[in-house]
């Protein structure tokens, strides 16, 4: 799986979790907070994305990520490990 594909999954889930955001308009260099997501929204987006990617990343490893791009890197690391 490519990083672009991982980013697409995250973008799709951000859009699905919000009334007024379109996946195409999301910039991976920004954080979910920049798109108005609160901490509950972020848990939802992260969980649905991990479910779709069939990975399980400990929440404690996600706490100091700054943007969507870094989240995608972290997810990709686990996708490549084949971690279930």
């Amino acid at each position, binding site marked *: 799986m490519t990083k672009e594909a991982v980013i697409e999954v995250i973008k799709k889930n951000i859009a699905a979790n919000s009334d007024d955001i379109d996946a195409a308009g999301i910039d991976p260099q920004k954080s979910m907070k920049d798109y*108005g997501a609160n901490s509950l929204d972020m848990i939802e987006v992260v969980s649905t994305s991990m479910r779709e990617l069939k990975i399980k990343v*400990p*929440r404690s490893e996600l706490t100091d990520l700054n943007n969507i791009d870094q989240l995608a890197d972290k997810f990709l690391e686990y996708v490549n490990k084949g971690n279930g």
Partner: protein
Amino acid sequence: MADKALSFSLADFFFNDSPDVLTPPSDFQSWFEHPKIRSAMGLFGQQLLAAPRAGTEVLSSLDGKRHKVINMTSYNYLGLSTHPEVIQAAKEALDLYGLGASGAPLLSGTFDLHVEFARRLAQFKEKEDCLLFSSGLGGNVGAIQGLLRKGDIFVLDEKCHKSLIDGGTLSGAKMLFFSHNDPASLEQMLEKCKGKRVLVAFEGVYSMDGDLARLPEIMKVCAHYKAATYIDEAHSTLMFGRNGRGVAEHFGLEHEIGMSFGTLSKSFGGVGGFVCSNARIIAYLKGYSSPWNFSCAPSPPVVAGMMKALEVATRDSTLRDALWKNVAYLKKGLLDLKLDLGRSESQVIPIIIGSSGEKLIQFAYEIQRRGLFLQPVDFPAVPADARRFRISVSSQFTQEQMDTALTIIEDVIAKGLRA
């Protein structure tokens, strides 16, 4: 996952993919049964065998035996749960009224005691009226869920207690979190709320960090945007302010606050919650606040005890003064040990040990083995890089208990962190 067990936490099993709702997630079971997790979980839910005094007794999960301990975990900040006058008042009410209220407040659960206590609480907080709840959590959930509707906006400090978040979720209002204690971030959020009904919530003392709301700055922003305000004084009522009315009194801003919440489980030493505000909104809330309307009224003997607790704590400043003296003494001792106490400005004193969950649990066992009952607070309750112990100072601590505790903390935590 087994070897990584400690990097997982309860935050990782919230969503459950198992087809049967009554079966937890498959990986939850293996995580939960991992020896290291079992050992960590063993610290929680240990049984107290006596009143939550500064010296008490626990059935320890270390060895399954009774141990006398110095208790720095209970919220019995002013020692009121065992104050002789409080106990006496509760006993008398127990004889007169029995154990339970046996009814919801609107039908048959309202006793003269409830009416009188609510009146005194409103008077104490200098508000027109008060609504009493059977739990603190229920009070926050009930007030927020009763005040806000879909289409409204609930703006909260990101460190606000779960009960406020749950109230927001239940209300259907949109929730926006501002960065902790940051007036500029609050302003950004309120800028997005123009034309909407908005309620802003914050706490007097934050429960995990012990820092105070930056009330003057926050209230100024709220006033500029004409946003209604809600303060949770769970950890500050009876302790802060010249008359013990809380952090809002401490800053001289209590009349500007729209609604003031307090709990009866901490400084009051009992159980229950209350909100104080203008009489019209309290009357309205009675119709729409489910934890009030659809739940049995608080137990009469507990209410009688709390009413006495209010009297004892406010007739003079003896208990508060004793508390602040102990806070100063312990804080100095901990700072001399070069421990990281975060931004604590209150009787809630965190000892932040950092990102290692393993060290946290190891220290906790060692401390408790030495006779200090001090519980760890782990991620996700606090940030993963700021796991901690949290001291709840009590006016009841003796000099000797504090000195013993400081020695144990030095030997285990201070030396352990340097090792």
